[in-house]
């Protein structure tokens, strides 16, 4: 019985693919734990498409985006390098014209994209999945595929352009002002801004205040998160609260706990995670500390801007300041795009696929609605209009078995051609000058300084010093274990982790660069973040007392 590849045309084939490129890297941030087949199909196809589209639209001089392969639920990537000097020059000339609109009207372009993509989501949501015909459901799914494709085009065009500006700003700060991206002064310049993710967190905080004033606080504090909704619905007050809360979820709840997967409920389907955050805000009490923090950040930022501008020769300040404004938008974009692009699109994928899944179950093609995530679009098309004619369960069965296998053995972090080592591979990444590879994947390598006698060395993502109890969190499900004043230790963080930043006193992450989530959010909350320690989650145990000094990039385990 033939079962198709998960991502036809883009399955990893060691023999051929290592001949094409000697180094393939696992995308550990997004594809650990391994993806469901459907999500993998979407990501490999369209993230790949978006990166090549963005690199081509901007005509990046040295790199044509990334190539991606699917291997056992993992995404493997390599760079598509421009081969000849002559082509580099041609691309460079075009690049100078192509990047201009982003320099001149960054906000106009980004806001236009946000409007476009939100319009597409509204269009998709208009279909009532329960009453739609099979033809309409299939059409909705096809439109979702197109939306995902378009989302990645916007995503990568913006990301390449934004990060290019950011890297130039870092270089210019080094050249003209003598500060680099691990310097606290630099961090002060790029923080102190509001963004959509913070606004959503603030809404959650406002609901926590309302719960208190409506006398509903005990419902939250006395129950576990999954029971809160049920208990609220037993009182008039609670029902009104839930009605407004659902409305808020319908606006901003199109996201899932894991950013790059679709097999967990969205907040719209199940507001438990969101209600859990309201509960945490109630327990914590006080004001929304991000507001106060932002005011402080904002005045720190203005002082830092002045300090840096004063170091720049007067006749260079014009363009330098314009560049600084662009770089400051990088942090905002880095956070906001997760909300408007990845999270929302993935929620739309889940919604549309579940609509079909339900119909497939009714027609007997599947046993469970969620089994649809073990199918890929070609298989869905097979049964889309006439699900009663097909049995897809054999595909699901085999794929699920594969998927369960993938969970047992971690994918290797890199697959390298014989005679090619990881250092050489990293060298290729750096030499590509690919802005995304540099800013998100590679980061600055930690400097080991034995005289500091630290247990771990990393780089500064957000300045400051803190001491507290370590809380090692390996996935989002464990976030509720985080307590006030803890120091969060993780492999990396994503936007759904943002709310805990209001409670913790510091962060240690295994990987990351200055535009990684942990660094950006850490700076907004004014807490120290040490990144790129590589072995934080393996060396530090939950409950240990640790001290982080982000200014020096060190972590000390105090009770070994």
């Amino acid at each position, binding site marked *: 019985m033939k079962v198709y590849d998960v991502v036809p045309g883009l399955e990893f084939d060691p023999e051929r693919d290592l001949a094409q490129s000697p180094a393939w890297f696992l995308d550990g941030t997004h594809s650990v734990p391994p993806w469901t087949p459907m999500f993998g199909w979407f990501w490999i196809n369209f993230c790949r498409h978006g990166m090549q589209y963005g690199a081509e639209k901007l005509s990046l001089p040295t790199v044509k985006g990334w190539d991606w392969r699917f291997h056992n639920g993992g995404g493997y990537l390599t760079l598509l390098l421009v081969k000849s000097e002559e082509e580099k020059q041609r691309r460079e000339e075009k*690049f100078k014209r192509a990047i201009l609109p982003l320099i001149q009207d960054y906000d106009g372009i980004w806001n236009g994209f946000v409007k476009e993509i939100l319009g597409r989501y509204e269009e998709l949501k208009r279909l009532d999945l329960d009453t739609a015909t099979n033809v309409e459901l299939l059409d909705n799914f096809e439109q979702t595929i197109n939306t995902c494709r378009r989302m990645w085009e916007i995503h990568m065009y913006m990301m390449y352009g934004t990060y290019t500006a950011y890297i*130039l700003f870092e270089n*210019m700060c080094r050249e003209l002002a003598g500060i680099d991206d691990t310097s606290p002064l630099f961090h002060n310049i790029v923080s102190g801004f509001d963004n959509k993710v913070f606004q959503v967190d603030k809404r959650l905080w406002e609901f926590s205040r309302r719960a208190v004033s409506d006398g509903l606080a005990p419902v939250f504090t006395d129950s576990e998160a999954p029971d809160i909704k049920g208990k609220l619905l037993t009182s008039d007050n609670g029902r009104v609260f839930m009605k407004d809360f659902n409305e808020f979820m319908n606006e901003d709840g199109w996201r899932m706990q894991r950013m790059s997967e679709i097999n967990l409920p969205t907040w719209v389907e199940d507001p438990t995670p969101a209600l859990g955050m309201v509960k945490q805000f109630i327990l914590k009490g006080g004001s929304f500390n991000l507001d106060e923090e932002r005011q402080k950040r904002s005045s720190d930022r203005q002082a830092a801007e*002045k300090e840096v*501008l004063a170091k720049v020769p*007067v006749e260079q*300040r014009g*363009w330098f300041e*314009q560049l600084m404004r662009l770089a400051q938008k990088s942090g905002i974009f880095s956070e906001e795009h997760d909300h408007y692009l990845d999270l929302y699109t993935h929620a739309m994928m889940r919604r549309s696929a579940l609509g079909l899944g339900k119909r497939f179950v009714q027609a007997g093609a599947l046993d469970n609605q969620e089994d649809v995530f073990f199918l890929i679009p070609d298989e869905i098309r097979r049964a889309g209009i006439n699900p009663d004619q097909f049995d897809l369960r054999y595909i699901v069965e085999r794929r699920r078995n594969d998927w369960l296998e993938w969970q047992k053995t971690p994918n290797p972090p890199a697959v390298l051609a014989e005679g090619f080592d990881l250092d050489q591979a990293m060298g290729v990444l750096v030499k590509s000058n690919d802005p995304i590879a540099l800013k998100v994947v590679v980061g600055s390598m930690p400097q080991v300084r034995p005289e500091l006698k630290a247990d771990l060395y990393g780089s500064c993502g957000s300045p400051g010093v803190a001491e507290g109890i370590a809380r090692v969190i390996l996935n989002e499900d464990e976030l509720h274990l985080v307590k006030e004043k803890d120091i969060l230790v993780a492999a990396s963080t994503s936007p759904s982790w943002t709310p805990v930043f209001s409670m913790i006193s510091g962060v240690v992450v295994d990987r990351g660069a200055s535009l990684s989530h942990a660094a950006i959010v850490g700076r907004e909350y004014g807490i120290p973040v040490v990144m790129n320690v590589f072995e934080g989650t393996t060396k530090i145990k939950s409950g240990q007392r640790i001290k982080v000094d982000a200014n020096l990039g060190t972590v000390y385990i105090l009770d070994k």
Partner: protein
Amino acid sequence: MPEKWIYWFDEVSTTDNDLVGKKCANLGEMTRLGMRVPPGFAISVDGYERFMAESGAGEEIRRYVSDKADLLQTVNGQIEVGRVIRKFIESKPLPEMMKEELFSYYDELCRRSGLEDMAVAVRSSGAVSMPGQMETYLNVKGKEEVARKVIQVWGSAFTTRAIAFRIENNMVMEKAPIGVAVLKMVNAKCAGVCLTVLPTTGDTSKIVVEGNWGLGESVVSGEITPDQFIVDKACGDFQCSIGKKTKMVCYGPLGTRVADVPTEVQTQPCLTPDELEEICRIAKNVEAHFNAPQDTEWVVDSDLPFPENIFWVQTRPAKYAKKKADDAEYLADLMARIFKM
């Protein structure tokens, strides 16, 4: 010829350029824009014409130059002719009728300011750009002295360069489209310039204010390092570099003199934040009115209370380096370079 040849500043505006000359028309326009201009009046080009006619100086000049065509072809000849003509003019008293009128305006100006024999500045105000018409007399006191300086300003229309200009442009020798501004001397605590653009970069998002203790001449001449404030137009934040101001220009018994700045205030900023803010506020308004970056001169009076102590004596379109081709294109170039590292 119209009877009226003296106007209060608020009676004229930029449309009266040909009547009272650029400086006066500009001062008139400034009063209309809400810029506090030192009180004073404008003597129109008709005043000059009338003086030349009634005093006989015009006729004398005509006769004198009628056979000097050859002499005027040489530089030495131009120097000689200019010297003679200025002597003709400066030797003539102001005709009685004109004197009465001028004195009545000066008396009224003194009365309005509540000062006797008030110190004024007497400045030339050319209606066309003509080199050499730059004569300015500061700290002029008393009506007879004012009359004398007005005549000297008229005479300044016959500097060597101005004569050369007339010959090159085939202009009649005794004609000079020159007005005169007579305005109260501000008892300057400090003074300086304010540009609503960074002249070196063409950055129009900034204002640069430079100032020194005393009169503004020391700042304009560039002989000392003044205080410099660079102000962001949008948020009002500013960066300042405070110069060590060792010298300043102040009034002498007559005219002006250079004086030492007391050591204890040499490194003190000459403007308070309030004064700086007010100067920038008004400069921005003026820039918006003319829709072009402005080059202005301001004086802060040491006797009057804030904000009545801020006076303006000049605004004109600023000269500045055009913005580097385009900052955006420059940035695009720089961005291309990061792919080569």
